[in-house]
């Protein structure tokens, strides 16, 4: 089912958590809400679930205004960060809970509930553990029980809050792939919250980047990585360095020296570039600075460079990180010259 969020605003005790936020989620889509802590991503998820009430605005499930419905009536599957399994119930009882609490008119017969539980256990690969209690399971197993429990009610939307946050790296990677397959197989509209950009970029059809209660950008992994819409997105997604520059006469000036061609605007701007988008060069347009650190990163090296201001300036040096080939002559404390080959400019308003 598609979900439309229209001009949602949420305040907690007069502290705004979300400002006038709108988002359309297509049916069957896998969406990641990505942002630093405090960006409002979990609040948005809880609003969709109905666990919080918006201060203003509406949420539509299909054509129905879900704002008028209680949590119980929204038919959503919610997986909590710490799973919130019922610890006094076995795995099977946990999964069956959503079916057992239905009014007798819509409650499936016992045999069918049992069969449904068995199918779900099979789907999350936990057959044979139905008699266990949650505290007898590992973190990854609990996560899958929580997912099976949410899926048991055949939700119209599946919502996951930091689904892999409490797991170790290896299990997280496995479950991530598993969730992707699971989504492809079941086709549920799924929204998950994460602060892990790798997770968001790898898993989601579209990523919603949030910051300070606002949506910064919505797009595919390629969109947000290659075409960041704002300085925040550029610096939040992937690694990047920033330099204050001035645009004049069609050129980008740094420390009053032209370092490249500006295709847009005039005035002060912020220049962002990725560590890999540079070449080492001594040319006229090169930037030069002191190497303060150098570290190995898989098949390459990352050099941290302090670029000093022009003569006479007492401001702190600009810290940038660039990728350098393993065989490049880099000495700690020595000078290194380079030039960004691709960058993005954001004019200061």
């Amino acid at each position: 089912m598609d979900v439309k969020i229209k001009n949602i605003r949420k305040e907690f005790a007069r502290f705004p958590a979300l400002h006038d936020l709108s988002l359309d989620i297509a049916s069957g889509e896998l969406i990641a809400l990505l942002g630093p802590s405090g960006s409002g991503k979990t609040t948005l998820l809880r609003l969709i679930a109905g666990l919080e009430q918006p201060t203003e605005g509406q949420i539509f499930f299909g054509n129905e205004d879900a704002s008028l419905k209680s949590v119980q009536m929204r038919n959503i599957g919610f997986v909590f960060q710490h799973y919130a399994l019922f610890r006094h119930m076995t795995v099977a009882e946990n999964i069956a809970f959503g079916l057992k609490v239905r009014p007798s008119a819509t409650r499936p017969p016992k045999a069918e509930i049992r069969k449904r539980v068995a199918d779900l256990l099979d789907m999350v690969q936990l057959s044979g553990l139905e008699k266990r209690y949650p505290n007898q399971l590992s973190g990854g197993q609990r996560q899958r029980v929580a997912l099976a429990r949410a899926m048991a009610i055949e939700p119209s939307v599946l919502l996951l809050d930091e689904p892999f946050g409490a797991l170790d790296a290896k299990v997280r990677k496995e479950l991530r792939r598993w969730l992707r397959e699971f989504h492809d197989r079941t086709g549920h509209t799924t929204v998950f919250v994460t602060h892990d950009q790798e997770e968001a970029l790898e898993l989601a059809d579209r990523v919603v980047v949030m910051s300070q209660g606002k949506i910064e950008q919505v797009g595919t992994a390629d969109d947000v990585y290659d075409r960041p819409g704002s300085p925040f997105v550029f610096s939040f997604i992937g690694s990047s360095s920033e330099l204050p520059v001035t645009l004049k006469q069609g050129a980008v000036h740094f420390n009053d020296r032209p370092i490249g061609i500006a295709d847009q605007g005039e005035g002060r701007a912020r220049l962002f570039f990725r560590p890999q988008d540079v070449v080492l060069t001594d040319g006229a347009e090169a930037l030069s600075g002191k190497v303060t650190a150098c570290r190995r990163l898989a098949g390459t090296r990352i050099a941290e460079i302090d670029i000093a201001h022009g003569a006479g300036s007492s401001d702190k040096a600009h810290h940038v990180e660039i990728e350098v080939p393993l065989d490049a002559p880099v000495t700690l404390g020595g000078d290194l010259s380079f030039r960004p080959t691709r960058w993005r400019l954001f004019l200061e308003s």
Partner: protein
Amino acid sequence: MKSWRQPSILPGFGLTLGYTILYLTLIILVPLAALVWRSTGIGWDAFWALAFDQRTLLALRVSFGAALIAAAINVIFGVVVAWVLVRYQFPGRRLLDAIIDLPFALPTAVAGISLAALYAPKGWIGQIFAPLGIRIAFTPLGIVIALIFVGLPFVVRTVQPVMAELDREMEEAAATLGASRLQTLTRIVLPTLVPAILTGFALAFARAVGEYGSVIFIAGNVPYVSEIAPLLIVIRLEEFNYAGATSIACIMLIISFVMLLIINMLQMWSRRRYSNV
């Protein structure tokens, strides 16, 4: 043979166990043993005759019956009070929280006298019920009220901390799965509180069985009707009938011990069943 010693960061099993046994012996076991020894000193026949005297049996029934009813009422009332104190913020919450402990601190005789004054046919509350033909003070009903008063803090104070630790997300999870508020309460919240509720029940019950001070003022102390076993013990003592007094005490001891043992076992079972710790 399996060793009882377990490796631990803080050793001292032998020392602490020895201390525990010595202490329990001096403080609890020796006086109780003396009681049993004293009561059996008169011979079995005399013991049975004294113990199963009609007046004794009825007094025991009043004592244990009223204690059970009071503890059961305290469980319901105490859980509600704890819920209000834990879940809601309202002006005067801290004050209310402090008032809960008053029955602990008040001399029970004071409580008994004021309750008797309130519930007497001419008292503030008693006069409401008197026209309806309900007498509260000087009847077993009055005893139950006095026992509710002294037992309430036990339930509230044992349930409150466990309730405060409840995982709110479990309730939210139940709601997202379609459970109504009542279903969430009965299937999620209460089951996790069962061990704490049983503990509170046991404490309130034990306190109520042994209660003397507050009860004798409101009970009326009519033999065969509203006379509690502890009072009967005192009456026997005043008659210099030490054998009679100790045999009643002995029976109280046995019944209390069996009941507390059962409650403890129930608690252990529920702890395994409901909290899996």
